[in-house]
């Protein structure tokens, strides 16, 4: 069973994604901020990390940097899920840039699930 880590401070997003992914047969883990997310990621080495950018304590960019510094983390699959335009540039230039950059409010849930399915095949 593929493992997916969701790092998202917004409870509503977290809950929905968790339900939908679990329903689609994934092993889903939740983290409410970057700090928790990084710990879970490094401990469990998920097949995909869905990462929000703006979060309390440790933000998405910060967590991504720390992740990329890790031997396993540098190649980990990451989708950025955010509502902030123009953040793409923030992650560019980092080694193993993210697989997908998703503006949540611009994307259909179905499409996201499809992309995840394709990525994890």
């Amino acid at each position, binding site marked *: 069973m593929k493992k997916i880590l969701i790092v998202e401070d*917004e409870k*509503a*997003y977290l809950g*929905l994604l968790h*339900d*939908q992914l679990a329903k689609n047969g994934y092993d889903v883990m939740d983290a409410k901020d970057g700090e928790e997310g990084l710990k879970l990621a490094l401990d469990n080495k998920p097949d995909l990390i869905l990462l929000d950018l703006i979060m309390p304590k440790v933000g998405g960019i910060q967590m991504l940097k720390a992740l990329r510094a890790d031997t396993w983390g540098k190649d980990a699959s990451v989708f950025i899920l955010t*509502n*902030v*335009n*123009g953040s793409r*540039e923030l992650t560019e230039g980092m080694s193993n840039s993210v697989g997908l950059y998703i503006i*949540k*409010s*611009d994307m*259909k*849930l*179905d499409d996201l699930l499809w992309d995840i399915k394709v990525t994890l095949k």
Partner: protein
Amino acid sequence: MLKHLFNIFAPQKEENPPYPVNPSEKKLSLSELRYRRLFETAQDGILILDADSGKIEDANPYLQEILAYSKNELLGKHLWELGVFKDIVSSKEAFLKLQKQKYIRYKDLPLKTKNGRSIDAEFISNVYMVGNQKVIQCNIREISEFKKSDEKLILLSKALEVAANGIVITDDKGIIQWVNSSLTTTSGYTFEEAVGKSSRILIFGKNDTLFFRDLWKTISSGKVWHGELINRKKDGGFYPMETTITPVKDQDGEIKNFIAIQQDLESRKNLEKDLVKKNVNLVHQSKVQEETKQAMLNVMEDLEEAKRVIEIERARDEAMLISIGSGIIATDQNLRVTFMNEAAERLVGWKNEEVIGKLWFDFVPMVDENGNMLPEDERPIKQAISNKKLSTFTTPLDNYYFIRKDKTKFPVSVVAAPIILNRKVIGAIGVYQDITREKEIDKAKSEFVSLASHQLRTPLGIMKWYLEALENEDYMKKSPRMIRNYFDEISDSNERVLSLVRDLLSVSRIDQGRVKNVPKSVDLIQAIKEVVDQMQIVTHVHNITLGLTVPENKIPPVNIDVLRFSEVIENLVGNAIEYSVEAGSVNVTVKKQDDILLISVKDTGIGISKEDQKKLFTKFFRSEKAVTQNPEGSGLGLYVVKSYIEGWGGKLSFESVEGRGSTFTIHLPLCQK
């Protein structure tokens, strides 16, 4: 010897005359005394000079009197030392001439006396020997009085000579002594023929004896006669003359002469007739003149009034220009400043007198947001002159700054207009405003919009996914149609708000200058094709025909952010469809014109009114018709489109006729940097 002679002439010697002792000497002194008396009493000025030295040896009292010099002032002086003789002897050299010539006479010599009086004198000098000594004797006779009366006489006789009246002077017997030219002309006699003849033959030609006797009685008794005489011409003809005869008496009261003055009656009568006629004319003319004068006065008055009005208006205009809040300058066609108001002085820190007549650009540089100097050709005032039309940088987006005298800068809005006189550009007017505050407000607004949009997006995004998740549930799929319709309405509304927020965000990013281009080499035709294909799906709304025409030749790839480019095309085509009428058409045409790619989107829709065209690219502007047609638009699309295109160095133009349709054309330079 001479010295001796003059010594005895000297007055001081006279008091104690050195009478000689022997008889011959006595004889001599007697004649000397006689001469001396003559010398002393002569009514001519006499001056004795030593011919060798030119010194004055003696001067008689009469000379002293007329020249106003005392004897002491004269004696022993050189002739040329006295101002009075400057005209004869102004130098020693001239004196030498006087010495050489034995006799010199100046008939009319103007002299100035010591007290400044001008006199006319006759000057005669003789040189002779007295013993073995040479002396010069000068006689000076004042002729001023003679000259005056002479001149007067000459003047009078001239006047008589040229008078229009005929004048005859006879002796007491009536024998003609003199006639003037007027009389000789009318009578035909010459002066020589007339003089010596009896006046009867000339001026009393046809008058009978009785008449003549009466006349003679009158004038010979010393009275003036006045009447009409018939003159006789030399050729026998007669002519009437109005005549006045005046007897002239001598000092003893004896009649010596008669003077007859005649006037041509004919001509006088004609003159009078003429005068009457002329008078009538004059009266008429003066009436006309009076009217003309009045008319002129009226015109003058009107002119004065017009001038006054113009002056007031000018003063008012000037006062307005000076006190208006915007900085205003005027330049001639060579960009030399001709006017600068107070607000402009405050804006740029330069004083009127510092910049008048100088090049504006030398004083106030214009830079962009990065501090790069704007080339002179791109400055609005230069463009206004070159292009003969208004040139403006007025929005906070036009990030241009003026540099003040103290090197500080401020964001400026510029409106520059050419001054056109007789179709020739004679200068330009620049209107400037410091838009620091506007920029701050705009920035604050953009930041607020940006923040608000992000905050809005999260709950909207959450709703979006939840609604979708719910929709996908079997429960929902099995629910009644009405429930599913309700659900769709919620979904649609949510999408609408999201779309609005998306537009708001785009705008706020543009306004904050945060739009980053991610250019890639792109086949534009392909990109346009893809957008048009996608848009076919929505044409069914109004049964629109959507067509695309591309050039046969390949267009070289362009470096451009393809996502944004597609967004632009989508937006324009979307608008064209949205604002189309039922069964209308939308045509996208791509053309290459030199190095510019023209992409036009033409519709047959509702069009845009003239009034609305002005505000078309204003944020949030939506025309009333557009709102009716599509209540969901945000009024941001065209603003975003225009901003993107301009960011690529292109421009967006449009033509539109209300009720007929619109054409939007993108002008995109093919050589993208």
